[in-house]
């Protein structure tokens, strides 16, 4: 049989696709912000010197990094409902993605914080800065700057991985695609279009993180210091 591709029935649904893409970016945004905060505290916990906290943070990181996101999503979904808690699919998806990316971010941030040399910390101590102030001014921000490319890649991977939340019926881009293909019987065209939208979203995200780096790291903006 001949190959007859018809993209128009898919492209006619651009409104649904746009809604799905927006939800995908929303999920990614929430997970990146919350996961980023978890990452900072997780990394501090893993370095902090308290053996119990170190072990707990370590178990969290290893547990998440060595199990599939799909299974984590099911565990959060069914775990919450077995506790009698009812949340929307979007909330469950956001929680699961946050827990997931928080573990990866913890590991990346730890590498960044560990890269700050002792002299920097001693200089800050010598100036009388408190432990929290030293973390904020001398370890966290310069540390994040060091690992910014790795963080960006991880966050893009997270955005792509959010497609898995379609399996618990979060109405993001992949779920929209599943719906469109079941209505149009144009699976091939649908998934090609959606794949390209994801590629575009990846570029948008990378560009966004590049812009953000200019705002976050003024030295980089002024001197062009490579990340």
């Amino acid at each position, binding site marked *: *049989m001949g*190959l007859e*591709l018809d993209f128009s029935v898919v492209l006619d649904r651009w409104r649904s696709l746009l809604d799905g893409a927006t939800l995908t970016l929303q999920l990614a945004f929430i997970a990146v912000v919350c996961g980023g905060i978890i990452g900072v505290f997780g990394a501090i916990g893993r370095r902090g010197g308290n053996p119990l906290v170190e072990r707990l943070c370590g178990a969290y990181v*290893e*547990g998440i*990094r*060595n*199990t*599939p*996101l*799909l*299974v*984590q999503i*099911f*565990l959060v979904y*069914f*775990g919450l409902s*077995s506790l009698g808690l009812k949340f929307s699919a979007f909330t469950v998806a956001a929680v699961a993605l946050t827990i997931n990316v928080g573990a990866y971010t913890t590991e990346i941030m730890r590498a960044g914080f560990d890269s700050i040399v002792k002299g920097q910390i001693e200089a800050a101590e010598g100036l009388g800065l408190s432990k929290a102030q030293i973390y904020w001014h001398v370890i966290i921000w310069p540390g994040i700057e060091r690992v910014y490319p790795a963080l960006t890649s991880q966050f893009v991977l997270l955005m*792509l*991985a*959010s*497609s*898995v939340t*379609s*399996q618990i019926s979060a109405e993001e881009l*992949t779920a929209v*695609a*599943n719906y469109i*293909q079941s209505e149009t*019987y*144009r*699976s*091939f065209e*649908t*998934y*090609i279009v*959606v*794949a390209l939208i*994801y*590629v*575009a*979203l*990846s*570029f948008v995200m990378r560009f966004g993180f590049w812009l953000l780096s200019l705002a976050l790291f003024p030295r980089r903006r002024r001197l062009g210091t490579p990340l």
Partner: protein
Amino acid sequence: MGGSLNINHLLFLGHGALWTIGLSVIALVGGGLAGFLVALGRVSPSRTLRLLAATYVQLIQGTPLLVIMFLSFFGLAAIGFNISPLAAAGASMTIFVAAYLGEIWRGCIEAVPRPQWEAAEGLALSRSQRMVKVILPQAIRIATPPTVGFMVQIVKNTSLASVVGFVELTRSGQIINNSMFEPFLIYSIIAVVYFSLCYPLSRLSRRLERTALQKKPALA
């Protein structure tokens, strides 16, 4: 298979776990071979090949594996190519792994110190001789820890084959759950099985990385 969790359920899960391993091996071998070509393409002297390989990597690394799975199972079927879930999952994993491993290996090839390339050129070796005899043996040493690390990603990502109906570990869990409805228990068991497959690989990767760091001066 209804009722409470029994030995048959566990056997069924074990069977699924074997297919998870099987699909991982297929993905590693297929993706490894294709990834090797991608890596060579990325460092090729031909502009066209470099561009082609780079475009491939950009496209695949910008697309979720889940969408690739759907595309190769439902998409191909819709345009007349009916393939089995195993073939669809294997092909998707291969395509996916090739892009990531190709990019990791390109980095390793480029990490071989510059003087080695120049020394090989000075010996009047042909380009392919230089690659095979000088560069690749060193690149393989550099590539081992990150490749083992990426195997963890491969094993975890095979779980997505469940969505096209391939009965690996996650899918077998879903099937059992359909008759028992103990989702939290079953997915916890599945998570533990994945963990026991992946954690040793993670540990091994880290150990290799540490020894590689200690041996680094010998490489330079």
